[in-house]
């Protein structure tokens, strides 16, 4: 889909928000400086006795716990269980959200009928379903996948619907004037037009899938990173609790940056003004 632009003549250049690379570098340095300050405070506070190391282990202690945890035999099992729950939940949630969003957008009657349910469902804090899903689907992975699906499909559904409905009137009229079929209009105009908005929903869905899997594990599990957090908390091994949090953060961030990269590849025409 992505293409490189080659022009014989000089095109009008898209304005960059940063006039020079120099300034951009400076912003990066500021970010880095803040990180250093936070890590230093984290390291020094427990060491200087400002907080108990049991409540907040020092940064270096967490790094140590992280390394030792990752060397344990059981670690990979728990890691892969949670990762699998997240991935399956995310893929299913995104697919369901996309399918429902498209259905509601192209079929006005369905939207009229289903919209109250959609709004009502959104109002429920879906975390309350977690104990129920454990009761229904057991302590294994399926209850966590269901939880991840239930809270992650929603942003995709709403963004798909909103994106597809925001196609400019003139663009629809143009397609009608050349007698395009509804499918042609959908494929050539509506879907690409909605893609940036849909993608924002997909990114949110990933974050929600992580939350869903972990909450499910908190409520009832014998495996997974959420289970490990519960376990280490009960054993008062807070350094390991932090270590697991770091791993979860890495999963979330890794997925997010992957999606961000895909977003840029796929939606190459996005202008700076449209934001991210």
């Amino acid at each position, binding site marked *: 889909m992505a293409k490189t632009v080659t*022009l014989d003549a000089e095109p009008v250049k898209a304005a960059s928000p940063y006039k020079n690379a120099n300034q951009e570098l400076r912003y990066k340095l500021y970010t880095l400086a803040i990180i250093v300050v936070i890590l230093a405070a984290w390291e020094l506070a427990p060491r200087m006795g400002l907080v108990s190391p049991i409540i907040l282990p020092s940064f270096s202690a967490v790094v140590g716990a992280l390394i030792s945890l990752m060397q344990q035999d059981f670690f990979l099992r728990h890691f892969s269980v949670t990762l699998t729950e997240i991935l399956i939940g995310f893929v299913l949630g995104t697919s369901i959200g996309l399918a429902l969003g498209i259905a509601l957008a192209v079929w006005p009657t369905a939207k009229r009928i289903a919209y109250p349910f959609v709004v009502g469902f959104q109002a429920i804090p879906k975390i309350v379903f977690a104990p129920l899903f454990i009761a229904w689907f057991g302590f294994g992975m399926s209850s966590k996948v269901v939880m991840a699906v239930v809270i992650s499909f929603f942003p995709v559904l709403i963004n798909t619907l909103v994106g597809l409905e925001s196609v400019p009137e003139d663009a629809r009229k143009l397609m009608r*004037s050349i007698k395009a079929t509804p499918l042609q209009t959908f494929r050539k105009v509506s879907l690409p037009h909605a893609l940036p908005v849909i993608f924002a929903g997909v990114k949110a869905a990933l974050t929600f899938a992580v939350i869903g899997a972990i909450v499910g594990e908190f409520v009832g599990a014998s495996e997974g990173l959420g289970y490990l957090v519960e376990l280490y908390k009960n054993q008062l091994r807070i350094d390991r609790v932090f270590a697991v949090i770091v791993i979860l953060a890495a999963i979330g961030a890794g997925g997010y940056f992957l999606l961000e990269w895909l977003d840029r590849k796929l939606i190459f025409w996005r202008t700076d003004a449209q934001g991210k």
Partner: protein
Amino acid sequence: MMAARIDNGTPLERAAPAETIIDVKGLGKTFTLDSGPVIALESVDLTIRKGEFISFVGPSGCGKSTLLNMVAGLLPATEGAATLNGRAINEPSRQVGFMFQTAVLLPWRTVEENVLMPAEVFGTKSEATRQKARTVLEAVGLRDFMNAYPRQLSGGMQQRVSLARTLTYEPDVLLMDEPFGALDEFTREAMNLELMRITQAAGITVLFVTHNITEAVFMADRVVVMTPRPGKVSGVIDVELPRPRTIDQMQSQTFTDLIFKVRGILGHGQDSHA
């Protein structure tokens, strides 16, 4: 800008009394709203000959867009009927091209891909249509920008792509709803001259909606003057200035008289620039 020429440059034989292409009889549109009926347009009669350039002027709300949409087959009439080449218009036709105030380009497609989009929809995309697209892009002075994306183009250039997209599928009729209204004065004048040159060379019938009286008279073979509340045609004025039209003709007495005639129909205190 004026250097580009349409493909073979065959001059149009306007001399022969051309046949009717669009026939509008008693056409009207009433919108039914919750607050009651709104008469957008009342009993319009108009016969348009092949190759004619017709301007529609009138203040906001006099039903210009409504009329154009009905002729395009995008909006059903509530009274009367319109025909295209003798056939009743009740749906859009591929012989008719529609151009809007905005260019309506797809930002994920290059200029060339945008221009070929209708061909894809028609299922006629081929080496021949590609060649045609290149020729038309050349004619509108955008050959060097075939592979550019819309956001890399100025507003005037985007509107040219829009024109090229329509011309590429060779419609008999071009419906234009304030096509250059969003452009600056200089660009608009250049676009108008180009439009006249291209459509005249290709023998395309043009229905051109504008708020601008000067522009309406300068472009047209006939100016249809419309007034609002309810929207209707209040007069049709023949413009017998020789073609090709030149900017100098605007200085002539004939031209000034025509402008006053249009103003007279519209009523006094009417601005030429809306």
